[in-house]
């Protein structure tokens, strides 16, 4: 018997006893359906995190600051830490009142010379007093810029242009109503006034154009504040530093370095080590969100374990179904053996039947799972998860869906081996005598 005939015969045998087969398929379906949903949940959430990662920072960007002694500023057994004139008060990154050691132009040069660093850019920290649209109320905010490779998830308009000399910025969608605009689209093109105080205690007003409205996200660019372009950053930074001598001006809490986008995890780790050796600390976006992803993966793993348990229960159904089938077809098996069908082929016939049941159960389970999952996530996206735009709770990628089907088929095959082996071993004479 050739392979095609074997498959064809197995397929037609599968539906010899329809009710039994359908019930077994249903059991497999439940397992495959659950596995699809739980897997989709993992895919959806992780994909959302990945999207967020690209928003927070490009994959090839690392935030660098000067490494410090954890006990700096506190007396310890080795006595008080020595005063460091480069230590500056930093806000936004650490506890209020704590200091970081600033990066000087020398540090920037040192960083640029480290092997693997393609580009260094100091993070200019800007602290505006308030912002105001038209004659509306004044609000507190923070300001952040975009590094190459960073994206903004936009609700309206466009991201601020890096090349433009015009002052452009994005406001978060939560600001729209407070600033007095009807909706996100209405805000685009309007002017926003930013007040900033320089070192001589003089307040300056800078006008900029709102070119886009950013979606809220769990880790939005600019820490949920304004996203400004380079021209505006420079303007605000210069304004803020009026009255500070030039060499005092160039003190930065952080810098962004770029490395080869094709760098592997090992390369990144090596780069971090070189930075540490040089006295700096580098953190990638992946580091910041790594823990988060690990937790999601663990939860999905537990959910998947439940689905696998369901599948195992279903696989006993397959064993049972096929044992009954072997029992019913005892004489047929005997006849086929008498006619010269080998034990291996008989084994193949029954285990293929198990694989077909597994395939049907998993294909239907995965199909309906995808439909239901897509339905659920689109319903939730409009209701429960409306505050997390861009999140598709249950998403599917072709690879994991294929893997699910293959895994279920493999489980079904394993379940089928027991009855199939019994059929293969059957003695033709005994089988033909069987009443």
């Amino acid at each position: 018997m050739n392979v095609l005939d074997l498959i064809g015969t197995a397929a037609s045998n599968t539906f010899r006893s329809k009710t039994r087969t359908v019930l077994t398929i249903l059991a497999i379906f439940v397992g495959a359906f659950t596995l699809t949903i739980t897997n989709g949940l993992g895919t959806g959430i992780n994909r959302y995190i990945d999207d967020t990662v690209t928003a927070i920072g490009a994959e090839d960007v690392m935030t660098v600051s000067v490494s410090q002694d954890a006990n700096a500023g506190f007396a310890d057994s080795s006595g008080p830490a020595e005063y460091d004139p480069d230590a500056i008060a930093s806000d936004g990154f650490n506890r209020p009142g704590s200091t970081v050691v600033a990066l000087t132009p020398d540090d920037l040069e040192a960083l640029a010379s480290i092997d693997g660093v393609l580009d260094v850019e100091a993070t200019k920290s800007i602290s505006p007093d308030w912002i105001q649209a038209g004659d509306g109320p004044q609000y507190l905010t923070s300001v952040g810029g975009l590094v190459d490779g960073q994206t903004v998830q936009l609700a309206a308009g466009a991201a601020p242009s890096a090349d433009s000399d015009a002052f452009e910025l994005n406001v978060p969608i939560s600001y729209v109503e407070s600033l007095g605009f009807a909706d996100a689209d209405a805000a685009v093109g309007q002017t926003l006034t930013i007040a900033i105080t320089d070192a001589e205690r003089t307040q300056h007003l800078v006008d900029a154009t709102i070119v886009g409205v950013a979606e809220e996200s769990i880790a939005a660019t600019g820490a949920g504040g304004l996203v400004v372009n380079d021209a505006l950053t420079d303007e605000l930074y210069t304004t803020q530093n009026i009255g500070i001598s030039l060499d005092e001006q160039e003190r930065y809490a952080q810098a962004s370095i770029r490395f080869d986008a094709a760098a592997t995890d090992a390369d990144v780790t090596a780069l971090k080590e070189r930075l540490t050796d040089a006295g700096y600390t580098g953190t990638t976006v992946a580091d910041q969100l790594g823990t988060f992803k690990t937790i999601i993966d663990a939860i999905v793993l537990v959910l998947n374990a439940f689905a696998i348990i369901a599948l195992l229960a279903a696989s006993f159904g397959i064993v049972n179904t096929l044992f009954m089938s072997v029992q019913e077809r005892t004489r047929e098996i005997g006849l086929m053996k008498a006619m010269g069908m080998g034990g291996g082929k008989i084994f193949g016939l029954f285990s293929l039947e198990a694989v077909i049941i597994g395939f049907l159960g998993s294909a239907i389970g995965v199909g309906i799972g995808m439909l239901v999952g897509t339905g659920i996530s689109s319903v939730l996206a409009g209701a429960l998860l409306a505050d997390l735009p861009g999140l598709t709770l249950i998403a599917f990628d072709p690879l994991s869906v294929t893997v699910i089907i293959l895994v279920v088929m493999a489980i079904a095959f394993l379940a089928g081996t027991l009855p199939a082996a019994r059929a293969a071993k059957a003695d033709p004479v005994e089988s033909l005598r069987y009443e």
Partner: protein
Amino acid sequence: MTTPIIRVKDVHKSYGKGPNRFDALKGVTFDINEGESVAIIGKSGSGKSTLMHVLALLDAPTSGTVELEGIDTSTLKGKKLNRARNKTFGFVFQQFFLTANISVLENVMLPMKIAGVRRSERKARAHAALEQLEMDDKASNKAVNLSGGQKQRSVIARALVNNPRIIFADEPTGNLDTATGGNVEDILFALNRDKGITLIVVTHDDELAARCDRRIYIRDGLLVNDTTEVAA
């Protein structure tokens, strides 16, 4: 002298061990020549079914040899054995052993499917065999819907389809009424006569046995009478 198609030499077959040991065959020796029609006759429990299973290579003898065309069948293993069964033998059983819910055609094609014959050729040959038995009009019927006589004719078509050298018939008319049974007998003997297919019939029906060239009587696992030897 030509080699007999089957040569049985001092065949013993026993089941079980120790005190439960049951000797179904206690030393049987005979030859069957190509083209013969042979009846193996005996009461139930005489060992005639065991003898047929041993002849059809479904069961190996405990001791003694069975030669198929001069080849000791104990040397045939695995694929060779399966091939020998598939190509050389056709089976007709009292209980038909048709698969109930598939078509007559599918049932008849089964031995060729096992042999790995191409589908188109399978169909053509199955139709030809059914035509020979005037069953071609029932080809697409489900086996379960046939009458007893039709079932047995389908079984004969299935036995014929691989052009076997030997047809084993185990009580071929046991489940049929006299007229239908006679009809089936006619078909079997016609095949024996016209195509030279060796026919080995296991039966306790004396009338059927009487139509065979030769009758081998079995009692308590021993050959008690062989008509050719008596004639010789």
